[in-house]
């Protein structure tokens, strides 16, 4: 068995059924071996698309996604996706071919220093120059991708190593990393305080609030979270990546906080006297102006990554731990009735009014997405791109788990949606998968329509088209004196015709009163289909917290735009 065959054998042992990638010179031995492997490879049309599909696969199943690329441009094309996985804590195993060891360092054809490039976008990376090290490298990469805070791992394997025979007697054991700590050297760890101190704060608090991040679902702790909410009656807000952990209809749930958060959520954070942050990193888009974030609150922060504790906001109690282990230990005897009643009132006053689709008008983006959400089965997956439509999805669609809401949260990568949806549909073929894009984002990885066609993957695509780079346009309008620089995309192609060329069925939605019928049409299509929604370019995302502003000073929709 050579190195290439061993990699595939390893993946088979790990029950990997599907991988995503793109071949090339240095990785050819692996693709050759693939012809004799049980693993199904999905050929993307760009390495970035392949890795986003692996991310979609990983996020929709809470498991490791696998992606393969070649050296040089193959590897550089993966960098954006690796950064995306790094910031959103997605477990990936990425294998790149490298030029042969005899050519390395000579500026050979399609040679680039992949290990060097990977350092700031991977949880860990290795260059495997000795076939005997390959088994151990694969094994600890697989474990490392998932353990603690998940993330992407890259293995760069030169072509000659892929072709070298591996004898059982040659296999080196793991190099013993992190077990060789001498008695003198100890890893600094200042983040362990007893859970009982959290419970004391909960007893003392009048206005406690739970801040739910994406780490809760990654830890498999959704049930533990909801059990805690049921016994404590704590109100909660969610980050973008935490959406789906708490049922959106739950009486104590206030929705997403942050720059485009719901008013009730942002006001609750600003008024609370105890903020219990679980599985989150207090990202700047969530906190708004940090100096004025939760100004009255003592902060309790529980996260698996010690480096996030106190990183942006000082904590009263910080615990580095698996939230699944901590949540069952939390308890309170308070009822917080007054606080909950106050928040319920704000939530009701600020509730969004959706269109009844009776009027003839341009489609209303929030209402279209709210209607879509009502029509989708609870186990459907929605992938989105980045921009206005991404925030409308977060605000107006409902999810039962973050695994069903694939969104590029940390890196904010346009072009994420379609390939992520492909990965999700490969992973969960029995579930409906919808990709919601903007017209700008859709064009960023439009070549992945070729992947849909090649494999007949029945993803449903909605393009929320305002012929603009909508979010940038919104900022130009609100904060740059309406100086619209390079955000007009009225030159867009005819999206329906484009989709049809790739074998999709397609139609437009141009009038609000056709919304239900158009969405029904989309969801009834057997194969891949595209719905092109022509929006009014003036529609903006509300509310919005202006930059460097406290979250409670959000701007709400002007009445003239209502």
């Amino acid at each position: 068995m050579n190195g290439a065959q061993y990699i595939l054998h390893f993946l088979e042992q790990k029950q990997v059924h599907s991988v995503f990638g793109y071949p090339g010179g240095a990785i050819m031995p692996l693709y050759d071996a693939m012809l004799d492997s049980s693993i199904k490879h999905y050929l993307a049309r760009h390495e970035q698309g392949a890795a986003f599909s692996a991310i979609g696969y990983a996020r929709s199943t809470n498991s490791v996604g696998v992606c393969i690329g070649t050296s040089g441009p193959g590897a550089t094309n993966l960098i954006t996706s690796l950064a995306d996985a790094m910031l959103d804590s997605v477990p990936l195993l990425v294998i790149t071919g490298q030029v042969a060891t005899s050519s390395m360092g000579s500026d050979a054809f399609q040679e680039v220093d992949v290990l060097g490039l990977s350092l700031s976008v991977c949880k860990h990376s290795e260059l495997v120059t000795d076939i005997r090290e390959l088994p151990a490298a694969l094994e600890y990469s697989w474990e490392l991708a998932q353990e603690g805070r998940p993330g992407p791992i890259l293995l760069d394997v030169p072509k000659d190593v892929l072709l070298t025979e591996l004898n059982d007697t040659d296999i080196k054991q793991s190099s013993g990393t992190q077990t060789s700590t001498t008695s003198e050297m100890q890893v600094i760890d200042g983040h362990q305080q007893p859970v009982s101190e959290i419970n004391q704060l909960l007893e003392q608090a009048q206005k406690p609030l739970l801040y739910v991040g994406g780490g809760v679902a990654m830890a498999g702790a959704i049930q533990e979270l909801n059990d805690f909410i049921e016994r404590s009656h704590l109100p909660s807000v969610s980050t973008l990546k935490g959406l789906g952990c708490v049922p959106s209809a739950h009486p104590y749930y206030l929705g997403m906080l942050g720059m485009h958060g719901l008013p009730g959520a942002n006001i609750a954070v600003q008024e609370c006297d105890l903020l219990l942050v679980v599985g989150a990193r207090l990202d700047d888009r969530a906190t708004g102006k940090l100096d004025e974030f939760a100004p009255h609150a003592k902060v309790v922060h529980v996260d698996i990554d010690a480096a996030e504790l106190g990183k942006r906001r000082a904590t009263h109690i910080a615990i580095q731990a698996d939230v699944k282990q901590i949540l069952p230990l939390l308890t309170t005897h308070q009822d917080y009735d007054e606080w909950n009643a106050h928040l319920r009132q704000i939530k009701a006053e600020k509730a969004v009014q959706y269109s009844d689709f009776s009027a003839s008008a341009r489609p209303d983006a929030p209402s279209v997405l709210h209607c879509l959400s009502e029509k989708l089965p609870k186990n459907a997956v929605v992938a989105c791109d980045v921009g206005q439509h991404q925030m409308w999805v977060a605000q107006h669609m409902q999810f039962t788990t973050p695994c069903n809401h694939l969104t590029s949260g940390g890196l904010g990568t346009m072009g994420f949606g379609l390939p992520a949806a492909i990965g999700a549909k490969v992973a969960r073929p029995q579930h409906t998968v919808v990709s919601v894009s903007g017209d700008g984002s859709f064009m960023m990885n439009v070549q992945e329509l070729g992947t849909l066609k090649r494999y007949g993957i029945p993803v449903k695509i909605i393009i929320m088209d305002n012929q603009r780079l909508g979010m940038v346009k919104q900022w130009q309008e609100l904060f740059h004196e309406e100086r619209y620089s390079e955000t007009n995309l009225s030159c867009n192609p005819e999206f329906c015709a484009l989709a049809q060329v790739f074998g999709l069925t397609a139609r437009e939605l141009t009038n609000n009163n056709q919304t239900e019928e158009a969405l029904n049409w989309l969801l009834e299509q057997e194969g891949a289909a595209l719905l092109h929604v022509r929006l009014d370019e003036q529609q903006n995302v509300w509310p919005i917290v202006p930059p460097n502003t406290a979250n409670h000073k959000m701007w709400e929709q002007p009445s003239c735009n209502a």
Partner: protein
Amino acid sequence: MQCLKLEVNNKPAILERVLQVVRYRGFELISLQVSPQGMDMLTVFITVDGVQPISKLTNQLNKLYDLAGIIHLNLAQSENAPHENAMRTA
């Protein structure tokens, strides 16, 4: 200024990893001293300057897979001693 003593696996790119974390997390490298320790390990002393608490750096360095141990050498306790001595006697 703060001084850290790191024990790391002697793997390709390990120094790049350490220095990349130092730079990205907003610390200035003042000095660097590397010496082998046994067959497979390196001892790395770094002196850094920065406005953030040193824990912001050590917490990030702790996440490096090839880092086996880290000690924050308290320079304040050996103010009168030469800098190198402070590192060596820690």
